[in-house]
């Protein structure tokens, strides 16, 4: 069964500092991996996704993530955090059974940004 682990429940960084959010997955085949962001009271917005090819993927809002098969990881990074990045971040893996796929999410990492 597929699963996602986000080991950090809560992270605080200073504005302008770099950020790395960790994600480890478990899936039997080549995974489809996603990072979504959820602002308070809002829905889920896709930041970036990995299907195949380049292991470093670029997303919106200056985020990037690197797929490392050997470590079963898909960590999210940003070189310089802005106060508006404060939100909850979810890593997800897509599994395909039947005719459709389903996303399995991690428990999320809440990012706090201090000024």
């Amino acid at each position, binding site marked *: 069964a597929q699963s996602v682990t986000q080991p950090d429940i809560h992270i605080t960084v200073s504005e302008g500092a770099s950020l790395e959010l960790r994600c480890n997955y478990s899936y039997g085949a080549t995974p*489809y991996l*996603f990072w*979504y962001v959820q602002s308070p009271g*809002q*829905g*889920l*917005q*896709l930041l970036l*996704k990995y*299907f195949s090819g380049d292991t470093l993927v670029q997303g919106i809002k200056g985020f990037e993530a690197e797929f490392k098969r050997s470590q079963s990881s898909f960590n999210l990074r940003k070189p310089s955090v802005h106060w508006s990045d404060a939100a909850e971040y*979810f890593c*997800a893996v*897509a599994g*395909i*059974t*039947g*005719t*459709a*796929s*389903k*996303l*399995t*999410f*991690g*428990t*999320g990492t809440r990012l706090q940004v201090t000024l």
Partner: protein
Amino acid sequence: EPEVTQTPSHQVTQMGQEVILRCVPISNHLYFYWYRQILGQKVEFLVSFYNNEISEKSEIFDDQFSVERPDGSNFTLKIRSTKLEDSAMYFCASSRNSGGETQYFGPGTRLLVL
């Protein structure tokens, strides 16, 4: 940019009542999903729907839940007899294809069962 919409944004109901949550997926999408997020917990898959039938459902999606695409635009989730533990944010999502195709999420319906 096309987006998934959901109504209502909030719903309060009494335990045992039926609720219907409505979603309008992106128009050229073929796959539809419902997820839920209990307050403070992770987002959980409920059901996927394709070609007018359920593709997969989770163990959460028991007989009190049903989904329907009543017309060419709406996708609904019905909870027949709500329980306190059904209180959650319910997200609808849609995708153009299956596999690793991006699922686009709506803003959610917050359901409170009293």
